[in-house]
């Protein structure tokens, strides 16, 4: 493991840019944390911390020089990997029908992500399974594009809403990264403990001015993430959770949560694993050109389940139940993993502070419902 002094951190960004990557990372913009273009290390949210609670988010000055002294913001990397809007094709009207136009080749930037959390790497892996299953159906499995270069930063400042320890997804990264960093701030020193997770990660790491980490530094790094893990108080008991939810489609707590839920869909927008999308077929005013777009959708919208005669899920109760049961139970049958990584975004960004961990424990702690 290598020690990179804070003063040399900017080299990492420069080297990525020199290698041809578009570099993205967290930035403090408009009072929130967003993932955006990073040109230099001063673009990173130095000296910021976040305060999160149920329906509460504040990005504040912390008074210390941490670059990554926060948990996660509302955005996740899915905005790059699974864009909110994407045109699938364009067609022109012909005499009796239409013809698909050859798509103009869209530049696909090679992307590098800086500051990826362990829970977010898990989320990317989960979303990837969804693509892989769809691609498998085509009989023409995806030829992977250049995968994004991932510079993970171990989480040392989890928020009040984090529960990655319950979902076994953090706070320390285990795989899926090119370089992992642990940020250490002590009396007079500020450095990163760097580790490579791939060949290209090792190559890049070797070019950054650094020195070998001492045993003491390595254990300080481990202590920082151990301390983060211990500071996480929120928990979700996942033992038998799938079966529990399958047996409780009619639990009275669904009514209770529906009384509070606004069905706004915020939780699905901020969730790093929610993948549901919609197809939008459009036509221009001349009636000559049509397009098909793929757009993020939410199971909380009433149109989501529409079939002739009306929506299948009319009640808010049924829509919340669909979301939570999918996330924590049916997802496991569909993709062999839970759909939840414990990042806490759905709790933070719910306007009425609904807490998925509380909703699950309410069902667990009350008697099983009768069969209908």
């Amino acid at each position: 493991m290598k020690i990179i002094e804070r003063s040399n951190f900017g080299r990492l960004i420069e080297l990525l840019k020199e290698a041809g990557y578009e570099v993205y990372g967290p930035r403090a913009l408009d009072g929130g944390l967003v993932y955006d273009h990073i040109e230099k290390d001063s673009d990173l949210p130095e000296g910021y911390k976040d305060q999160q609670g149920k329906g509460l988010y504040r990005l504040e000055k912390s008074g210390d020089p941490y670059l990554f002294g926060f948990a996660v913001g509302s955005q996740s990397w899915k905005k790059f990997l699974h864009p909110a809007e994407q045109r699938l094709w364009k067609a022109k009207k012909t005499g009796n029908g239409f013809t698909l136009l050859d798509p103009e080749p869209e530049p696909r930037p090679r992307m590098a992500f800086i500051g990826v959390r362990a829970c977010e790497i898990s989320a990317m892996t989960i979303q990837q399974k969804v693509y892989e299953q769809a691609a498998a159906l085509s009989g023409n499995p995806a030829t992977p594009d250049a995968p994004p270069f991932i510079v993970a930063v171990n989480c040392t400042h989890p928020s009040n809403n984090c529960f990655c320890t319950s979902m076994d997804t953090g706070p320390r990264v285990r795989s899926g990264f090119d370089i992992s960093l642990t940020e250490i701030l002590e009396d007079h020193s500020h450095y990163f403990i760097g580790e490579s997770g791939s060949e290209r990660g090792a190559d890049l790491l070797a070019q950054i001015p650094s020195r070998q980490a001492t045993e003491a530094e390595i254990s300080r790094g481990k202590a920082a993430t151990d301390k983060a893990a211990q500071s996480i108080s929120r928990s979700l008991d996942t033992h038998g959770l799938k079966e529990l939810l399958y047996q409780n489609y009619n639990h009275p707590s669904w009514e209770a949560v529906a009384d509070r839920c606004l069905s706004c869909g915020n939780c699905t927008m901020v969730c790093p694993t929610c993948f549901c999308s919609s197809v939008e077929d459009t036509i221009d005013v001349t009636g000559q050109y049509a397009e098909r777009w793929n757009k993020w959708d939410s199971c909380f919208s009433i149109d989501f389940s529409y079939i002739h005669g009306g929506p299948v899920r009319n009640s808010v109760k049924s829509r919340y139940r669909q979301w939570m049961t999918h996330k924590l139970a049916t997802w496991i049958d569909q993709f062999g993993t839970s759909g939840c990584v414990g990042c806490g975004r759905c709790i933070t960004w719910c306007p009425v502070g609904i807490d998925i961990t509380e909703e699950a424990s309410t069902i667990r702690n009350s008697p099983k419902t009768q069969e209908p």
Partner: protein
Amino acid sequence: MIHNNLAGQGVVSDLMKPSLFRIESWKRESPDVFTMSFLPKDGMGGVGENPGFTFLPGQFNMIYIFGLGEVPISISGDPAPGLPLIHTTRSVGAVTQGMSLLRPGAEVGVRGPFGNHWPVERAWDKDLILVAGGIGLAPLRPVIYSVLNSRNKFGKVILLIGSKTPSEMVFRGELRDWDRSKLMEIHLTVDRGSKSWRGSLGVVTKFVPAISFEPENALAMICGPEVMMHFTIDALKKRGMQPEDIYVSMERNMKCAVGYYGHCQYGPHFICKNGPIFPYSEIEGIFREPEV
């Protein structure tokens, strides 16, 4: 390693691109139901030595009408190779209404076939009970063609059909032919009769207690409104049929048909790829559970 998901999306984009098919024929089945046949337009849609459309009974296509949008429609034709694609649909929304106005020569976009299929080969050497409610006969018609294409492979074949009114009964010409062929037993009923209706009145489930078949060596395939399927399943179980021998066709909102857009989820199942056909035993726990 995390792959750039955009690569996966490239494949999904390909799956979202329709092929062009030309309408060959158009036929009205009832006041708001019509049947169309299609052939791939030259140079597109896999034209080769076999210009027909290959599918399995119970599968569906996504049909795109230029500028209007795309809808899932089950395939109602004969699955034998080399035949045109046939769809029967009711004009209910903007897309199907637009589609109902198209005539031979017009072109539509087709993606498919998608979904699983009725287990026709499981019915070999067994009695086969087909129960259709209204336009639910359309996705079952390919099964009937399969049976007729190799009739001696099956035991008794009994077709039970319920319709709201006599004029809404679809495939009346075919029903007459099948009845005359004596190759299957057909029972029809309507909710509300008409002056000329001499047949039975009431729900389709009423036939189940009376028909003669071997429940322990039979397969049932049901397609219709959920409530109709529910009572039919009950009646078949009372006759001694097992849930794993009763197949139903389920319906949910379908957008992509490749298990990627999430709209058609039904409990753990994606109707588009794990369905639309399910043995009742597989969905017993959530069937008739409201709003799942």
